[in-house]
């Protein structure tokens, strides 16, 4: 037996054999993983072609201009956050509107965002609270003033 590139000691044949086996298996696994990765990427490319990546937080962009430097904003929703899409929307809204903090279902702040299952439901709640709608966008998200403006523009 000649010297191996993996083990310089030719007397350890069993050790050599299992080392070759290990790296052989590693190479096979690499090939299998490469094939799976290629398949997964093709599938993802196709998915993205059919439906481009959707960041639902985009529904809230533009509101920050009206909110100014409000530290806390109410976020009213009639959806359950146990629902994956509603929870995702809330989390992404928080990212888009940072550093304002969204206070879930608390309408006592100067501003409240209404993200309801229908525009009618949101407007109904706004009427019930006696709030003043300030902005509505094409996604049905309504920004309303739920409390009179404070002197420094920042709600407690």
């Amino acid at each position, binding site marked *: 037996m000649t010297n191996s590139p993996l083990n310089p000691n030719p007397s350890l044949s069993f050790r050599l054999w299992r080392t070759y086996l290990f*790296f052989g298996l590693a*190479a096979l696994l690499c090939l299998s993983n490469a094939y*799976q*990765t290629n398949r997964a990427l093709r599938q993802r490319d196709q998915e993205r072609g059919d439906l481009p990546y959707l960041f639902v*937080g985009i529904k809230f962009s533009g509101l920050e201009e009206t909110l100014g430097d409000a530290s806390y904003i109410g976020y009213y929703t009639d959806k359950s956050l146990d629902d994956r899409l509603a929870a995702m929307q809330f989390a992404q809204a928080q990212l888009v509107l940072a550093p304002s903090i969204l206070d879930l279902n608390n309408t006592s702040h100067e501003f409240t965002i209404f993200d309801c299952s229908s525009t009618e439901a949101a407007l109904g709640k706004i009427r019930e609270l006696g709030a003043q709608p300030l902005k509505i966008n094409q996604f049905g998200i309504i920004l309303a003033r739920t409390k009179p403006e404070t002197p420094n523009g920042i709600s407690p």
Partner: protein
Amino acid sequence: MIAWLTALIPYLLSTILGYLIVDRIDRPEGRIPLSIRFFLAGGIGLGMSAQITFFTLIAFHQLVPAAVIGIHLAVIGGLAVGKFKSGRSLPLPGLPSWPNALAAMVFLLAFIPLFKEVQHFPWGGWDAWEVWNFKAKFIFLAGERWTNMFEPLLWRTSPHYPLLLPLANVWGWSFQPAPDFRLIPQITSLLFTFFTMGLLWTALLYHTKQPLVVTAPLVILLIPFFATMAASQYADIVMAYFLLAALITLRWGVQTLEKRFFILTGISLGCLTFTKPEGMVAALCLLIIAGGFILFIPDRRRQGLVLVGLMAAVVLSSLATAIHQTSFSPGNQTFINGLTSADHPSTFYRMKLTLAFLLMELKADRWNGIWIFLAAGMILGGRQVWRKEHLPVPLFLLAYLGAVVLYYWLNTYFSIAWWLQVSLNRILFSILPAAAFWIFGAFAARKNTPSSSPTSDARS
């Protein structure tokens, strides 16, 4: 392309900073090969940049990008002057042998799927927008109100989580007055994956001198699930990096008993504590294991030197974590002690489910058999796998997974099935490079340690 190049400036500065720190520790004569030093520099540099950003935030009560950049330049300048005065020249890389050049090419090609994955998820995964990037954006934009992000009201964003990843991203944005908030987190996740895989490869290559060990990073990188997780902009890849760096340098420390390697272990552990709460647990496990090895050093003087080096490095690099935990963190808002709670007790069923789920996860399809392969390697390797220099990794895996299982059992805030489903895969993701380092390193082992060869590994 120009946006990408401009965005790379902070990462370049961090790598230079990391290089100079590693160089300062690895003296008088350099023992760490240039290739490994590069991958150590990249991650440690970013860890230090995050800490500098954190201390600047505290000093100025808000983010002052000019101060962050100024401190970076001052520290880099100071270290560079020290290096220049020491008279040590920069080691220049030589031409690699053709098998290694080929391995390097294949290694780089394996990152193409990761690039594509990053493009598929420009905003990252769920925790990226809910936790990590939210915190980064908050720190960047909130001015003096940045501490509002620790409000318990924001419990969904895990306000108690350490800040290394968000601060690394904030450092990235510091050069841009109106940044694109998507680009920097993408680059950070790509670079940490690159540094982790590069460190795994070059450390194995150094120990074994076998180009075949490139299969270790390849087999991991090409798992679709691993690529998705690495591209998700989560802190798990950051944790994986510092864990691997700590284990590699600890192995060198165990082999050579040189203080310098224990100092690098200490720095990696300190950064590890600032990545995630799991990072703190992992760092504690590893610190105890390192302490155990130090106890067995027969030479008392060397034992003392090594212990002081390790502890000083841990304490200094954990300072940011300590300040964050004691002065800012509101504590874990999602914790119920199952041992004392009558409503949510820790039951035997919960423990049984956790252990069963762990076994299920290890053989789940999404891992493409990597854990089964590593387990087979563990059996096939026999005694070789359990040699003294390899021991820190299996001891760590045992202690860490034990602690994790115990925590799942003890904290009964979440429904266990849901919690395991969403988090256990991340635990395994962050320990995978370390486990691969152990098994691959044991199989192709030769007695090559950093003390037995000069700095330049130009030929490897």
